[in-house]
């Protein structure tokens, strides 16, 4: 297991210290860590456990239970493609195949150059405008393969 950098360790301790007085704080602590570090480093687990007076198993159990928490650093941009029924009804599977091909990675993977992480998502609540994609927290509706390419190059330019 990689060790935490000293600044990462400081961040984790500060967040856990700030939130530990709240009722049932673990998920909030993990959200805050991921918001700052981009992921929850495995080496943060024992630190969070000791700060919150939980077992390492409890913390690991929560990190691994929830799809949203990641244990590896994300790419510079995160692309989430909805795989659920409403999007499937209007070409969502073809779009997903196109996205995989364009990025050259499968779901749950990051491109080797670290630019894009690709994640599946099961409903973005944009089902009247399917298929839906979220890129870096921005929601897009009625996304055709062509529109996806345009969005991707737009994001890439901003880098």
């Amino acid at each position, binding site marked *: 297991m990689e060790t935490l950098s000293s600044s990462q360790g400081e961040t984790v301790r500060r967040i856990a210290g700030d939130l530990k007085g709240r*009722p*049932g*704080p*673990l*998920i*909030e602590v*993990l*959200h805050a860590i991921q918001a700052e570090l981009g992921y929850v480093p495995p080496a943060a687990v024992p630190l969070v456990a000791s700060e919150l007076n939980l077992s390492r198993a*409890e913390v690991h*159990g*929560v990190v691994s*239970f*929830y*799809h*949203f*928490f990641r244990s590896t650093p994300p790419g510079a941009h995160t692309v989430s493609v*909805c795989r*659920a*029924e*409403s*999007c*499937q*009804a*209007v070409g969502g599977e073809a779009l997903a195949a196109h996205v995989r091909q364009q990025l050259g990675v499968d779901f749950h993977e990051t491109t080797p150059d670290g630019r894009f992480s690709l994640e599946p*998502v*099961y*409903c*973005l*609540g*944009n*089902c*009247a*405008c*399917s298929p*839906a994609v*979220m890129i870096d*927290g*921005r*929601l*897009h*509706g*009625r996304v055709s393969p062509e529109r996806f390419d345009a969005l991707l190059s737009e994001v890439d330019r901003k880098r």
Partner: protein
Amino acid sequence: MTSTLYVPRDAGALSLGAGEVAHAIAREATARGLELQLIRNGSRGAYWLEPLVEVATARGRTAYGPVTVADVPGLFDADFLSGGAHPLSLGPTDAIPWLASQQRLTFARVGIVDPVSVADYVVHGGYQGLRRALALSPDAVVERILGSGLRGRGGAAFPTGIKWKTVLEQPAGQKYVTCNADEGDSGTFSDRMLMEGDPLSLIEGMTIAGLAVGATQGYIYLRAEYPHAHRALHQAIAAAYQARYLGADVMGSGKRFDLEVRLGAGAYICGEETSMLESLEGKRGEVRVRPPLPAIKGLFGRPTIVNNVITLASVPTILHRGAEHYAGYGMGKSRGTLPIQLAGNIKRGGLVERAFGLTLRELLYDYGGGSASGRPLRAVQVGGPLGAYIPASQFDTLVDYEALGSIGALLGHGGIVAFDDTVDMARMARYAMEFCAVESCGKCTPCRIGSTRAMEVIDLLIEGRETQGNVRKLEELCELMVQGSLCGLGGMAPFPVQSALRHFREDFGIRS
């Protein structure tokens, strides 16, 4: 003179470019030396018209849509600020037939008000329900909810008043009001729209619930996939605290109610109420065994109300306009209105709030306009990924809890996903089990392992291998999951599969 314009901040509208349109309008106004008040409202729910821009005129609000950035200069040239004629003009918003024929009680303010302005909320009838509730005893408030016939809109359709009564009857001490905003069903977005378009109605509903049962703390459990709703809720809660509708002295009553949002982390199972409570406590979202019911032993072991967003947001209008008024809508045991969501392969998708008792056909064709692809509709899935597939031959079924139940389907959270005739129902059945396998919390074996086994069996059917034997295996497996799972995920994931097998046998290679 300053013109007032409305461009939605709703995530769906933004996903179609409403943010860019708002910027373009502001830029163009500045270039032309015009003064604008740009209000970022919720969506009216007519998504095929988004981005829908509205202008306040002497004759009321006038709509233009769908507007793109390229349309903006032309709209100014046509003097749209005074309601001028333009090819995108839709006339008075309230007269658009798709909207005018709806019966909006819960969504009365969505798309109309500034979602995060307490003042605007109050002008449009907000906090009248809480005012009434403060003048009543807790028993009387619960009595009104019982009398309205309101049933849980999250999907389980349990009478809301009975839940509240149970919590009220528990001995005094810490109690909680929790809102299940983990709207994970594909084809549903009414919770999101409401939280983005009129979050104060949810806040008011939760405050009323707190006063009714003696709970001083509320939590909204919001899914992480809804960042726009998160922002709107944050702003609205802060505004409500500032105006003293939340906090130590709610509306000068001396009563306390505090409210905060807690984010989920991408787990469908957390929409199940006991799993949501586990998650609110910061734990793995594993289902609890009931009893004890959450109303008796819920969050942190204390008596807890767990209600869906739409259920709680319907409370203010019931208190304000009376239980009889609300119960006057609907039919049979399905009282009031339901915000129905039209999704998938549908021409005019969006939110339709109507009294219970409409047929699927009316929704799909009169409102929805048929498929988006122009091909015949073949099936709809009602009630999310655990809901049954309904064939076109049953489109005359009424949308109410009992009528859908009688054909082996369920209403759930009111989402309808339409599919045209290119759909392969064996693949949709496989997906239902794939989804269950991904999202199973792992507690019950039939759900954890059965879903993967079912997927394998459906793969064999798709390959055309030993059809008869594999169909029997699949049917048995479905039955086992239904009977042997603690919660609705494993217990209902077979519904789409069983209904697909029943109605679309040819897709599984079964010769009838």
